[in-house]
């Protein structure tokens, strides 16, 4: 049977390992679904134009900007948000390194930075500075000047 267009859709997805079933409006942005419907407010809205990366999450293992996706597009997907990193209550080595290297000031960009850097480290466990900067190009930080963020990520990889 053909999928008829509808204003809302029952979606089923996995978020931080938990199965979720919910009816959402087609116009609902994924970032609002995550923040307002699921109450996971670690994912931030910075620019709402696709530029800043504060809303970065993992969709089926890939970093994407959740302000540029509709919640209905995530039907059937696996999502990980910043709350899914320290799932057992213990900071990941990357989160720890952000602390040690003073890689945040106001912290607004941090969830997005962590998600982009986590995706990088999963694929490239020992990234070079160039690789780190390339991976974080879609994440803006107005406070730190990036140097400490890049150092934190490199420190986790153990190179340089």
């Amino acid at each position, binding site marked *: 049977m053909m999928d008829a*267009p509808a*204003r809302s859709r029952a979606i089923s997805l996995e978020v931080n390992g938990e199965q979720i079933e919910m009816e959402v409006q087609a*116009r609902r*942005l994924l970032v609002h679904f995550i923040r307002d419907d699921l109450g996971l407010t670690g994912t931030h809205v910075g620019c709402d134009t696709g530029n800043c990366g504060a809303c970065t999450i993992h969709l089926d293992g890939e970093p*994407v900007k959740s302000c*540029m996706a*509709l919640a209905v*597009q995530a039907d059937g997907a696996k999502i990980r948000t910043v709350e899914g990193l320290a799932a057992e209550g213990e900071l990941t080595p990357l989160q720890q390194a952000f602390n040690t290297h003073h890689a945040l000031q106001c912290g607004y960009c941090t969830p997005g930075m962590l998600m982009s850097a986590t995706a990088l480290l999963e694929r490239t466990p020992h990234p070079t500075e160039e690789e780190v900067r390339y*991976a974080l190009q*879609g994440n803006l930080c107005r406070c730190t000047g990036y140097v400490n963020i890049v150092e934190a990520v490199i420190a986790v990889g153990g190179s340089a």
Partner: protein
Amino acid sequence: MLLREVDYARPATVEEAISLLAKYEGARPLAGGQTIVNVMKARVAAPDVLVDLADLDELRTIGFSSDGLLEIGAMVTYTQLMGSSEVEVARPILAEVASTIADVQVRNRGTVGGNVCVSDPTNHLPPLLTTLGATFTIQGGSGERTVSAEEFFIGVYVTAVGEGELLTKIGVPPSSGSGDGFAGVTIGKHGTYIVNAAATISGDGARIALGCVGATPVRATAMEERLAGSDFSEESIRSAADGLGASLDPPSDVHGSSDFRRHLAEVSAVRAVSQAAERRTGA
């Protein structure tokens, strides 16, 4: 941001997608969403129905046609293009240019089909696909047709894809010894282009196309003619670019005046042609 209300469907086949697009007024395909969702936020466009192409697996493949053409499905993402062994063998410039579009997150979602269907004058792929001699396959209720880049790009946000139609794939001839180059000036590293140029040099001579200087990619035909039989030394490329800027009528905006773009067009064309000349292996 709260979007205007919209209907959503996720068809399972290309035929279903086409019949949905034909049946509902104000229906639009949804590919990677990296342009259309922002456009909907700004209410520049307000589609009534979004037809999500996500489940159309046949649009996600990269392969070769029986006559050796590299075929890229419309839903292939930039990330997929960058990791494709077929692209690496047949036309590596596609992966090289894709790797400089925006950032990792945008490249994970944005598609080749979406990039050309928005026909944004600052996008990376339209000038590149123009010089590569790419073909565009469009499917509608009454069948399939294939058009050239010159026929495909009609205006800003306007292409040969009509209502009730889908771009299904893009065909690119393999390089066979030719050299490809791409250069330009961006706003910030890997940002939006102010002007860009793509060039291909083969046994038939040079093909050059400029982006951001008109509504659609502009072929630098006079410069191409001046390069006929050239040794492609730096000097001869530079002198062939002379007068290119004066032949253009580019827009002015906060990022550059019309005159500045004329200047950048010559600089970009020289860089792209030089790069292409260096990379030739068989020509």
